[in-house]
């Protein structure tokens, strides 16, 4: 084994980052922790409450419902976006001007601010004047996303797929481009079917980037706020009230800072835990 060089001065260089992280992550987080164990009625007067808010949140049906909605939403968009993104990446051209055209087209949705995406889809899907809304109704299907939970879900999912599949496409495409030609040539000589080429060459080579894509999409969709907020405002009723929307409702709508803080922490731990499980599973598979 190589011997490691020890140089305590290195810590000096890490210091700025530590300070930065402290200011933009640790200190805000600690305020949240502070709120989560106390009750306040303003004027900076606090009463110690212990784990009361945590118990309350964990037992609240409202929280369970939002969490379930959130999990459903995330699973749905992952099951659509990952295979779809891979499929699009596979069918993209490998050389010529087509490559840049496709890449630019793919990057476009990613460049649009989230609230604009929400607003766009809101108008796009309006049953009376929106292109999509009119079209679906024109097909004889009764569609009104502001009133029907199913339609609201459908629109929200479509919006997310439209906005974020590109990310999967770009990552998967990068993975595909890194496969040397020799692999495809060998597969041809070995008489491999297109499916076998996908299964034994393309998929394994894309695994790393797909892991990253899935992780990113998981975290992002689990914390989704702006787009559904602009599109449906969490409605109709509570049917598209995902965790973060619910959190904002509690914190800013009802000004229940204690429960909101406790919920934030639980939310944060769930994301962390799921990411950890997911990452560990992927890496364990890799190591085999």
């Amino acid at each position, binding site marked *: 084994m190589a011997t490691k060089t020890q140089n305590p001065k290195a810590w000096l260089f890490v210091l700025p980052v530590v300070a930065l992280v402290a200011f933009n992550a640790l200190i805000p987080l600690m305020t949240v922790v502070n709120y989560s164990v106390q009750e306040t009625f303003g004027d900076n007067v606090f009463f110690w409450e212990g784990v009361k808010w945590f118990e309350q949140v964990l037992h609240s049906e409202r929280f369970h419902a939002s969490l379930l909605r959130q999990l459903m939403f995330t699973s749905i968009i992952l099951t659509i976006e990952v295979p779809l993104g891979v499929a699009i990446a596979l069918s993209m051209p490998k050389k010529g001007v087509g490559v840049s055209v496709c890449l630019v087209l793919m990057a476009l949705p990613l460049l649009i601010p989230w609230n604009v995406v929400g607003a766009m889809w809101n108008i796009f899907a309006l049953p009376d004047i929106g292109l999509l809304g009119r079209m679906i109704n024109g097909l004889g299907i009764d569609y009104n996303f502001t009133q029907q939970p199913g339609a609201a879900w459908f629109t929200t999912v479509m919006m997310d797929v439209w906005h974020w599949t590109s990310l999967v496409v770009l990552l998967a495409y990068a993975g595909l481009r890194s496969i*040397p030609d*020799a*692999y495809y*040539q*060998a597969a*041809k*000589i*070995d*008489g*491999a*079917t297109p499916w*076998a080429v996908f299964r*034994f*060459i393309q998929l*394994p*080579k894309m695994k790393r980037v797909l892991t990253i894509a899935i992780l990113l999409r998981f975290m992002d969709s689990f914390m989704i706020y702006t787009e559904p907020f602009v599109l449906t405002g969490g409605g109709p009723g509570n049917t598209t009230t995902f965790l973060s929307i619910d959190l904002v409702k509690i914190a800013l709508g009802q000004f229940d800072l204690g429960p909101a803080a406790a919920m934030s922490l639980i939310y944060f731990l769930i994301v962390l835990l799921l990411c950890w499980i997911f990452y560990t599973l992927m890496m364990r598979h890799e190591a*085999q």
Partner: protein
Amino acid sequence: MSEISLRELRHSYLETPQTDADWALKKMSVDWSEGGAYALLGPSGCGKTTLLNIISGLLTPTEGEVWFGDRNVTDIPPDQRNIAQVFQFPVVYDTMTVYENLCFPLRNRGIPAADVDRKVREIATMLDLDEMLPRRASGLTADGKQKISLGRGLVRSDVNVIMFDEPLTVIDPHLKWVLRSKLKELHQRIGTTMIYVTHDQTEALTFADQVVVMHEGTVVQIGTPVDLFERPRHTFVGHFIGSPGMNVLPCEIENGTPFFAGRPVPVGHSIAYRDGTERLEIGVRPEFISFAADGIPVEIVKVSDAGRYSIVDARHGAHVIKLLVPEGESLPADGAHIHFDPGHTQVYADGWMVN
């Protein structure tokens, strides 16, 4: 199995080739006889891989046809040509075990499981891979991967041709030697046509019955190792094969006799030399030059010991001529002369041998 013939073949990677240099392969017609052990020898970039890929069908030639026996396969995809090819860079299917890797080409062709197993184990033994069969291929070292790559080319019996594109580049010299003799052995046993690409002359000469020498997209000579050594058809072959390579010296021809530095150089075979060539040269290998009482006067400039003989650099005017002197033989003192063996001295016009 069948004879492979390339007819009026020409290939360019460009859409619209303009100059001569745009052609990766210049017009050629080559026949590879059934059951031959060929080496395809040439420097980097001369078109060896291109030629293999055309034979295997990975590339469709810009012009010309590829025939396997009496079948024109020019437009037939690789998997239907019944050929095996081992690539320059090892390709392994990472997620499979070594065993599955070797099975892959057989299973894809629907061969019964029992035959697959028998064949795979046989090849694994030959390549010394038995122990590794259950291991995942991704964890292997570079030479392990190259062996798998090689193995996948060898597991199929009854192919028209097995082509190896510098299959042993990342393998260390000793193992390289072992594997090469195993390939040779396999060839003698199964008698399948084999084409072995290399840019290493020793590798080519030890493996092949016939060596195909390529240079800048042209096949310059096809012949046995002895042919290449004794009668290089092109000065390039003379340079490229043998170490040190052939001496190539400018000459003039008068009345059918070549003159070097104003002296006639006797040449064994008659010279059917036509006027009008740009560049005339004589070529003679260091092995066929000796010191003599008279001949071309030279000055010895360098002597390097190469074991059983010494390589002597002798200078005449601006020309340095290399010759081999067997170990133990003394070098002449001042006023040395050298003599070319007429039977092994050739005249080259524009690089090509005149005969």
